[in-house]
């Protein structure tokens, strides 16, 4: 296909290559056909491989350090509790649709993480799942909200009350959310002029976290023959059909990408990072906790605390530094030594049976081209992301198989999927791709030279 035709991106959050290209390849005819019409392969995510900031990194080709976004919430200063959500206004670098819009291209942006509150674009934009409610102003232009509500009902932002054993309800909500999103996609693609179209579906992430244990024999809670054993597979088939239904609206000549921001894998357990820090002498409490207590509600003795951590699919560890934090204790001259000591100890952590966890630890300046905002001092993948981080204190042990917050079925993995169908492009697997390559490649299809600041390469 000659350059300067249309480009479309279908994002499927959290989809791993193992499921699409291997295990269920024959069960997903649309995606399989797309791989036979173009190139495909694994797509390396960023550090950390989390929805926020991964999609913004993909669309700007800038790493989390350059964006100053290290997760859903980020420290806005060096106070102990000054966290702010990374919404659209936190993304200060241009994303693909900004550049295309300036070049006179019309864009449709639907539910791409990092787009609430909606910012003006040359076209239309529907905000992502971080919209507070269906009553919020989630669309640009503003009138689009009424049109979508009248046609499709209130915007199904996400699955409600996710931490629940009401799996039938959760499953139903995932399907309804996906159905609505693809219906919106078909509607926008056929009623608006566009040169660039992009949507992201979040159901693929939600289904993993809620149902992984039923379908993965390696999961400690797997039960063969459970009624939800095929829930993820059946949902993937549904998504494949939805993608198939969208393709005619996007056009056969359109340069089409199907991508994910990271993958998914079995979650083996949780590491109570603050319990561990306390036991290792890095964290001290001013008052003991009675039972599981989120770190934000515990009273820490900052005069005797060198480090604390955040929970989530990965962990961020922060150091309490003199002259930086309000009651810092680590002299600046000892910062690196303490950080390196912590890193060594984290990497040497064992699981509940005394086996090496295989934890990976990153220093921001080692993995990012620039470090903006207030970064964590260490980024930690417990068990290389096979274990989540639990921020609460008072659970009585470092290892836990009960979660203090969200579900415990699946964690993220480092590689997502990449499929690129374009007329004239021969089918072949490709290797060595990063999600940073997507934005430069999209711009290149429009004959626009990617800005020098973009880190990724144009995929040949």
């Amino acid at each position, binding site marked *: 296909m000659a350059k300067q035709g249309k480009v479309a991106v279908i994002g499927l959050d959290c989809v791993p290559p193992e499921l699409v290209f291997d295990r269920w390849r024959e069960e997903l005819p649309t995606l399989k056909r797309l791989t036979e019409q173009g190139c495909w392969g694994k797509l390396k995510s960023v550090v950390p491989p989390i929805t926020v900031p991964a999609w913004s990194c993909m669309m700007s080709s800038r790493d989390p350090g350059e964006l100053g976004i290290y997760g859903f919430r980020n420290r806005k200063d060096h106070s102990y509790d000054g966290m702010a959500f990374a*919404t659209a206004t936190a993304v200060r670098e241009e994303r693909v649709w900004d550049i295309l819009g300036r070049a006179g291209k019309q864009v449709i942006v639907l539910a791409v993480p990092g787009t609430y509150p909606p910012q003006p674009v040359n076209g239309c934009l529907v905000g992502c799942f971080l919209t507070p*409610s269906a009553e919020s102003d989630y669309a640009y232009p503003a009138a689009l909200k009424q049109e979508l509500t009248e046609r499709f009902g209130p915007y199904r932002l996400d699955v409600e009350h996710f931490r629940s054993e009401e799996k039938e309800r959760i499953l139903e909500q995932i399907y309804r959310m996906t159905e609505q999103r693809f219906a919106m996609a078909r509607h926008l693609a056929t009623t608006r002029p566009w040169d660039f179209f992009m949507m992201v579906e979040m159901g693929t992430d939600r289904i993993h976290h809620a149902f992984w244990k039923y379908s993965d024999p390696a999961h400690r809670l797997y039960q063969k023959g459970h009624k939800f054993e095929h829930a993820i597979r059946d949902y993937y088939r549904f998504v494949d059909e939805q993608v198939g239904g969208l393709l005619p609206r996007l056009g056969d000549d359109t340069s089409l990408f199907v991508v994910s921001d990271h993958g998914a894998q079995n979650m083996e357990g949780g590491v109570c990072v603050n319990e561990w820090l306390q036991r290792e002498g890095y964290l001290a409490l001013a008052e003991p906790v009675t039972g599981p207590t989120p770190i934000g509600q515990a009273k820490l003795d900052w005069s005797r605390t060198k480090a604390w951590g955040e929970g*989530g699919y990965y962990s961020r560890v922060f150091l309490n530094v003199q002259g930086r934090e309000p009651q810092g204790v680590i002299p600046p001259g000892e910062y690196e030594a303490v950080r390196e000591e912590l890193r060594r100890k984290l990497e040497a952590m064992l699981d509940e049976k005394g086996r090496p966890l295989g934890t990976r630890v990153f220093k921001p300046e080692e993995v990012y081209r620039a470090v903006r905002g207030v970064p964590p001092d260490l980024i930690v993948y417990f068990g290389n992301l096979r274990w*989540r981080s639990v921020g609460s204190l008072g659970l009585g042990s470092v290892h836990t198989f009960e979660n203090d917050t969200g579900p415990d079925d699946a964690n993220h993995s480092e590689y997502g999927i990449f499929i690129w169908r374009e007329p004239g492009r021969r089918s072949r697997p490709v290797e060595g791709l990063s999600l940073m390559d997507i934005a430069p490649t999209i711009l290149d299809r429009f004959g626009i030279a990617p800005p020098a600041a973009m880190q990724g390469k144009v995929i040949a």
Partner: protein
Amino acid sequence: MTNDGQPQGQRGTRGVTLWFTGLPCSGKSTIAQIIGEELRRRGHRVELLDGDEVRTHLTKGLGFSKEGRDENIRRIGYVCHLLTRNGVIAIAAAISPYRAIRDEVRKMVGSFVEIYADCPLEVCIERDVKGMYKKALAGEMKEFTGISDPYEPPLHPEVVLHTDQETAEASAARLLGRLQEMGYLPGAAVHEPYTPEEEAAIRRRLEQLGYL
């Protein structure tokens, strides 16, 4: 004093150098002038060092060879450094074509905002405010940036102004907003997207989803 030891100018702002760089006729001086006037109007202490004007006294005699240009920028940078550390907003508008020297000034000054006036060469040639592009293209003027001398655009400027696509006033307005966001000017430029109740609801939702 600010937390990082910088003296404060009026209205509690800390000193900063706003460094405009770009091809001749890309709009640097025009926007720098607008910004300077607006900041003075708001009561800030401001000094504008325009490349053309500076070459008539501070850096008089320095030519347009690489060495001459480098020394020109270093001297402007040094003055900006002195102004910045005394709580003044120093605005420099000079082609400053070489990346390495701009980065040297950045390191020296510290509180430094690089503003790239990004304008295609064709548009700059069309503007040709002083007729110099015409002379350079005719071979009558040597060592002219964009024609016979190189320009190295910044790789990571804090602000990019696409001056071929918006008016100088619009660029200036955007720049002022950005300076507020970066904390160099007072005023809440960042729109708070959530009410406290909404933020609490989002936090609960993300906790349930396992992200927090």
